[in-house]
């Protein structure tokens, strides 16, 4: 029996080329039981390709995937039966009802009764509409059915690709609340989302990809404290800006709303204040702001919008 903090998913030098295009390059990530791991990246970053390789839908060019301590290629079915996934949005048979769609999956997997279907539909608040055709569902209901399908076999790893797409604010909050609960049931959750604020709220670890290359792979807390944003109020803004531009340890500095916004290494407020004071510029206010995931993301990806 695996314990919390056991490695559930590990990718080792995982790479995928489509012709000359490097979709994923040497990806090394680890996902532990209890983790809510976010996978972020701009369009074409390689997130979906990576998820495809994890689920044995895409063959890696090099490297491999380990699930539950075993190579995926050794016995994919043994590993995949412990995973629930919604990939690139929910996709079900449009002519079947929500219930029948889950019944088809239940029959394919085996050992899942009608009681379990009822339970998972109830859990995502879809039981009362479960007899309606899937094609008549709203986007939010389709997302809920997608999540219900991942829970059907009581998985140890849940992969959710944009699970809040099309949900209203109440539905978004509901799913946002559900995700950490799923992970706390000694599972792990791999979340691909473009809502960075959401990711910051529910995830404990994050990997950021761009053009197949891993730009960051760390606990969110660690990532956010790698940099510090300081808001500095001074009387002589041009003079202060000129001083800061001579300091090589300052990452960036700009004037915004009569203040200087400075990106600097963590815990560098006193050092910055001293540098200004040495040039006869005295800060009237110095406010430390922790970086948001959005600012870290934009900084790492060069300001590209997230998918």
């Amino acid at each position, binding site marked *: 029996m695996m314990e919390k903090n056991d490695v559930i998913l590990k990718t080792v030098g995982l790479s995928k080329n489509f012709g000359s295009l490097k979709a994923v390059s040497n990806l090394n990530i680890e996902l532990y039981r209890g983790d809510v791991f976010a996978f972020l990246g701009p369009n074409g970053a390689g997130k*979906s*390709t990576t998820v*495809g390789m994890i*689920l*044995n*839908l*895409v*063959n890696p060019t090099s490297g491999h995937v380990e699930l539950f301590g075993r190579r995926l290629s050794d016995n*994919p*079915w043994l590993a*995949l039966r412990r*995973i629930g*996934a*919604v*990939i*690139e*949005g929910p*996709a*079900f*048979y*449009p*002519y*079947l009802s929500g219930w*029948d769609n889950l*019944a*088809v*999956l239940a*029959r*394919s*997997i*085996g050992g899942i009764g009608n009681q379990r279907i009822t339970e998972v539909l109830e859990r995502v608040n879809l039981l009362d509409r479960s007899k309606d055709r899937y094609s008549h569902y709203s986007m939010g209901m389709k997302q809920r059915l997608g999540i219900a*399908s991942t829970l059907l076999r009581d998985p140890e790893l849940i992969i959710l690709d944009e699970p809040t797409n099309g949900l209203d604010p109440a539905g978004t909050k509901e799913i946002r609340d559900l995700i950490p609960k799923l992970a706390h049931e000694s599972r792990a959750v791999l979340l691909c989302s473009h809502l960075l604020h959401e990711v910051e709220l529910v995830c404990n670890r994050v990997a950021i990809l761009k053009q197949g290359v891993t730009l960051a792979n760390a606990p969110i807390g660690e990532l956010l404290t790698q940099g510090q944003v300081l808001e500095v109020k001074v009387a002589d803004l041009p003079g202060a800006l000129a001083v800061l531009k001579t300091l090589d340890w300052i990452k960036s500095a700009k004037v915004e709303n009569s203040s200087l916004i400075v990106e600097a290494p963590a815990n560098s407020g006193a050092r910055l204040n001293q540098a200004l004071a040495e040039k006869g510029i005295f800060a009237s206010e110095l406010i430390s702001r922790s970086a948001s995931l959005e600012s870290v993301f934009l900084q790492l990806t060069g300001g590209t919008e997230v998918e």
Partner: protein
Amino acid sequence: MSRLIAAELLKLRKRGMTWILLYILIGIMILIHVLTYAFSQRAFPGAPADHTGGLQQILGLPLALPLALLFLASLGAVLATIMTASTTGNEYNWGTIRIALISAESRLRFLAAKLISVAIVVFIGMLIGLATGFLMSLITTAMSGNGFDFSFATRSYFWDQFLQFWRTFYVIAFYSLMGFVFAIIGRSAMPGIAVSIGILFFEPLITTLMRAAGGWVSNVPDYLFSANVNAINALTSVPGMFGGGGGGFGGAAVALPSVQHAYVVLGVYILVFLAAGFYLFRKRDVTG
């Protein structure tokens, strides 16, 4: 495997298209009988003297069953091809292929379950088509005022029909697998349906032109599809003027390959379609 077949049968049973194709089969078979009966009741200038008797003979027993099988070999093949190609290709169109594959024991088993479940539905459809032909024969015979004579119903007659049923299934399987493989190649239902039905209708025309060309080109059709399909269909006991006994539908009597040759050639194609379909399905990436 049985779990996957059960899931596939549930999908087919709940799908409106399955029932629509069945209704089309039944409807067209009824229509053909009704029209043939109507023509048998009228005299046409220039028609052979025995035209009425000939049409009534084909509608009545014992020819009704082989005639129904002959219709199934053509109309049934079209409908079965549509069903097979759409069952496979729509998994790509709807994006359900991803969730289906991560729920299945393996890609090969998933595909095998799909083919087995389609084969079961085709088998049931053929039985229903045959029953429709038989019932319509009884009705038109009664309407013509002809008596019922079941003296033909010998063991040898039923054995012949039994064998022809499976020969027809073989022909349908051939066209269905063509639809199946092109749906996989094109990752969509449409290439499977369009290519196989296109071949089903246009290949006989090309074959006719090749036969007319003479020389070695005239022998090429022996290794294509329709000549071999016709050779198998020709085994039916329906008279040639109604599409049996050689030449296919409305075709002039042409030299057909031997039946053994036809089985082997179509069998090779079936194996190639299966191998190509399974190989591509197993090897290719499933991407959005």
